[in-house]
């Protein structure tokens, strides 16, 4: 059984998962613990944007989703492909590269898209604002956490 990159690690029941501790939680379909969604994001961004520098941070633990989720990410992409492009076009390039993840598992994606020159003069990773609990009990987020399972 091939591991699917779109499978998100999730507990057996999403409703129960939100209410009980996940002490017995097992990533039942992917024995590889190195996070398939994060790997897919890294691979796709590398292939499409040929970055000088790339950081992919899983920030799901900062949000109201079960431990082990791969739903909220922050990416920092430094690429000369962004030269001359306004921010919105840069972000659209990133969105395009991660289209499949964004329509399945990934619920939130924070993006920093810099040219090598911009990164050189300000090499800092921005911080995400604190969660306000919106994902808790959110049916759409539960669906995303389920994505790729069937």
């Amino acid at each position, binding site marked *: 059984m091939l591991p699917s990159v779109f499978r998100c690690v999730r507990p057996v029941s999403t409703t129960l998962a939100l209410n009980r501790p996940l002490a017995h939680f097992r990533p039942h379909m992917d024995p590889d613990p190195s996070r398939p969604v994060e790997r897919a994001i890294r691979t796709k961004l590398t292939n499409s944007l040929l970055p000088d520098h790339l950081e992919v941070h899983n920030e799901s633990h900062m949000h109201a989703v079960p431990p082990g989720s791969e739903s909220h990410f922050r990416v920092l992409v430094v690429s000369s492909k962004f030269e001359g492009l306004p921010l919105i076009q840069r*972000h659209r390039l990133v*969105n395009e590269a991660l*289209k499949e993840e*964004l329509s399945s598992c990934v619920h939130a994606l924070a993006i920093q898209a810099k040219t090598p020159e911009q990164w050189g003069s300000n090499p800092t990773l921005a911080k*995400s*604002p604190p969660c*306000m609990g919106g994902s808790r009990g959110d049916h759409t987020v539960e669906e995303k956490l389920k994505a790729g399972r069937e």
Partner: protein
Amino acid sequence: MNSLIRSTARCLRAGAAVYLPRQADGRVLAASARLLCAAADLQKDLGNMVKKDKVVVFMKGTPAQPMCGFSNAVVQILRMHGVDDYAAYNVLEDQDLREGVKVFSNWPTIPQVYFNGEFVGGCDILLQMHQNGDLVEELKKLGIHSALLETEKESK
């Protein structure tokens, strides 16, 4: 305070909008046709919604009570610039709106910000525009004088 109530009221109004197309004689269409019609109607409505006000935000929650850190960041940035009078649509109240606006903007996440009917971006972009001074300029183009300009004047 009044402007806050106004933007909240506007948001509630949008959340209560019902997209139920009917045929000319008043009969309701079959479910699948209704869904397609509703989706097309929503895209048309969104076209109007983003043009009706100078500043339009699609967010989770309301400006008074944001339900997401990223949406809250947008609200706080606008507030810092003294922009209190804007249309805020709560996508958590309407799943069709939530999905429809992503199609309309061709943008996968919420929040989404529009200036004069034109899509600006999400939280990250607004934050960077705020940090590099572009937001003050863009607001000026909308005829909005940023409150931060006053603060700058006072400190000089």
